[in-house]
């Protein structure tokens, strides 16, 4: 099995990838503006929902339960879907999923497909795989059209072109749709997209979609969207192929009640998605006559095996954590080197890749907790980030890694009062070559990252503990008469000194 997540295994570190993005004033303005707008709208529709916290708890519980019994629910889904005339395929990794889908398209004799936005297809690199076999994939989600025509990459799991503004979109449409007179009037832009897309909806007989939810008890698949392009792709083609991660399963149709409240509010700040499609297998004379679901593992069972990080798979891909994240806000999604960006991407991508690649991503967070606060299924992203950082550290090859050395030295210092106080004294004495007029302005090594944009006051004459000692000596309130703990005992317990 070879797990692939787009080209994340070859992506530069987050730090490196962020640099050109931080330079891109237009992109940063676009991302700030768009995430602010969605976050504001979300705040309103969440605020008006009195049982929001109960809904989150319910969503989290349903997902946690499903993951616990995923093997059973998947088989249940397969049975129900098959009974309704669908075909279920199992893919252990990206390549297998691509082979299955390419095979199906060839079997039905197509060389073109229309697609609804699916992050899973970006994860497995489906468009490229189709392209290699001479099959042309047309994205139909407006943002995906912009990304595809612009030769770009999506930068947000809900709004893939969030980094582009209207005039940039106009430029792309002008060049790629051959419309030299197009203005940046939103109506004109959408009309152009509509003309471009309608022709494909009516002509191309094979549709490819993802899935927001796979309903185990009746084999239904649910997709929510805002533009109606999805409805077109789900109803007009003769053949429909859905690619879905195995974690998209929910037990019962009734469970949609919870998720269809959580998802639109979190994703787009809407009470309800404009288009909610739920279908079960095939029905003669109505919609696609051939329906296939490809259930994708691609590293998910590995995540499932890690009890502390398993909650990652509860994600319903709403993107709320991206919109609220102060880190994503600065860089946009391309810094994450994966189809999954933002806080959720920082935990999904490296885990799918078994922590062998994308090791910088768990560090792409200040652990501010805003993501956890908005997550509709209560994924404690900061907790998972910290857990994954632990895995990154444990897998560090070299004992001479400067960070590991610094951390181990600091730990040694902190486990002994004597060493801690010696380090404080040493810092005070040894700091002079680096101090200028009472300030550090240019620290060496890793700490130089601090002083590149920040000053740091020099170490004071007197530490707090030295002040306290002096105060006690001068008759101030003295140290506890019976020390709460003797130094010797602590040293024994901690195995130091």
């Amino acid at each position, binding site marked *: 099995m070879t797990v692939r997540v787009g080209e994340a295994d070859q992506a530069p570190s987050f*730090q490196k990838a*962020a*640099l050109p993005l931080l330079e891109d004033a237009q992109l940063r303005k676009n991302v700030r503006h768009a995430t602010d707008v969605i976050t504001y709208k979300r705040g309103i529709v969440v605020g008006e929902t009195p049982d929001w916290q109960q809904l989150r708890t319910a969503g989290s519980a349903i997902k946690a339960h499903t993951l616990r019994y995923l093997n059973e629910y998947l088989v249940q889904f397969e049975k129900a879907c098959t009974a309704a005339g669908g075909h279920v395929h199992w893919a252990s990794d990206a390549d297998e999923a691509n082979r299955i889908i390419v095979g199906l398209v060839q079997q039905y004799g197509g060389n073109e497909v229309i697609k609804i936005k699916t992050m899973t297809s970006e994860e497995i690199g489906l468009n490229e795989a189709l392209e290699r076999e001479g099959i042309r994939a047309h994205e139909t989600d407006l943002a995906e059209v912009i990304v595809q025509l612009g030769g770009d990459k999506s930068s947000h799991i809900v709004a893939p072109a969030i980094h582009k503004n209207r005039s940039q979109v106009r430029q792309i449409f002008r060049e790629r749709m051959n419309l030299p007179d197009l203005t940046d009037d939103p109506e004109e832009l959408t009309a152009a997209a509509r003309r471009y897309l309608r022709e494909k909806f009516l002509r191309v007989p094979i549709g490819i979609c993802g899935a927001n939810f796979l309903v185990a008890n009746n084999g239904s698949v649910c997709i929510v969207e805002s533009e109606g392009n999805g409805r077109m792709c789900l109803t007009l083609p003769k053949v429909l192929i859905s690619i879905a991660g195995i974690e998209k399963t929910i037990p019962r149709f009734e469970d949609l009640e919870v998720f269809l409240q959580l998802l639109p509010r979190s994703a787009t700040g809407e009470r309800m998605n404009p288009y909610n499609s739920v279908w079960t297998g095939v029905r003669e004379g109505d919609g696609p006559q051939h329906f296939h679901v490809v259930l994708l593992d691609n590293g998910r069972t590995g995540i499932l095996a890690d009890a502390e990080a398993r909650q990652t798979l509860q994600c319903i891909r709403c993107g709320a954590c991206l919109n609220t994240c*102060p*880190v994503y806000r600065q*860089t946009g999604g391309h810094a994450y080197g994966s189809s999954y960006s933002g806080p959720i991407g920082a935990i999904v991508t490296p885990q799918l890749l078994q922590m062998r690649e994308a090791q910088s991503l768990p*560090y*792409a967070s*200040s*652990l*501010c*907790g*805003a993501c*956890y*606060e908005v997550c509709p299924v209560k994924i404690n992203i900061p*907790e998972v980030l*910290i857990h*994954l*950082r*632990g*895995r*990154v550290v444990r897998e560090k090859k070299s004992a001479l890694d400067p*960070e*590991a050395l610094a*951390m181990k030295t*600091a*730990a040694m*210092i*902190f*486990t*002994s*009062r004597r060493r801690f106080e010696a380090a*404080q004294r040493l810092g005070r004495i040894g700091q002079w070559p680096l101090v200028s007029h009472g300030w550090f*302005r240019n620290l060496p090594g890793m*700490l130089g*990252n*601090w002083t*590149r*944009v*920040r*000053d*740091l*006051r020099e*170490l*004071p004459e*007197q*530490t*707090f*503990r030295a*002040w*306290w000692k002096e105060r006690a000596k001068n008759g101030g309130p003295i140290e*506890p008469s019976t*020390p*709460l*703990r003797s*130094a010797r005992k*602590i040293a024994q*317990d901690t*195995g*130091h000194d």
Partner: protein
Amino acid sequence: MRVSLFITCYNDTLFPATGQAVVRLLERLGHAVEFDPEQTCCGQMHYNTGYQTEAMPLLRRFVDIYKDAEAVCVPSSSCVAMMRDHYPKMASEQTGLNRDPGLVRAVDELLPRVYELTELLVNRLGVEDVGAYFPHRVTYHASCHSQRSLHLGDGPLRLLRKVRGIDLVDLPNIDRCCGFGGTFAIKMGDVSAAMLAEKMKDVENTGAEVVTAVDTSCLMHIFGGLHRQRAGVRMAHIAEILAPTESDRLEEAEA
């Protein structure tokens, strides 16, 4: 009340004035403050950076020092968050030869007595007006852990509003992360700088001369950036605003 102070490693080493203000404030309110010099660090930096093994002895050390304390006061919300969010799990997941089966219970018994400074004042001691005097324009940054882990709400602001002479101005985007994030500021220096730039803009737009918070660490970052720009804004931990009184001022003027 007998208050045991956990000053935190960075306040001890870099910001003794914060600790001095805490002592002054609590003693002025009639409480006995104790400081055990065996204390060092809560282990947050190690734990959050992925060095969880290295944080474990620091948990043990903290529990050993404070297990008999009546109340532990910590003038840093992120250190308290470290304890509340992670100590129970760390204790229950101990492995190896040093495993201490009593630690889980010890942590559970100790944590309810550990308070961030403003929590101690507002929630435990039930005081909002501490009799302070601070005649300056101040803006308050709600640090991430104080909001989203400790849920301090408007506790710190209620304390500040009662300060005499203060000109308290709202900070726009008050709860947006300043970009410090511990080792994040070093490891992701450029992104951290971008986040800092936004925070500095918000602080400067208030026209405040003092930016305050319940965490000196965030302030070190925000103020470090402002100082680099010679912005003319200084930092003060909330204790340094709550400690001084009007009579202190008179004494200082006469001296």
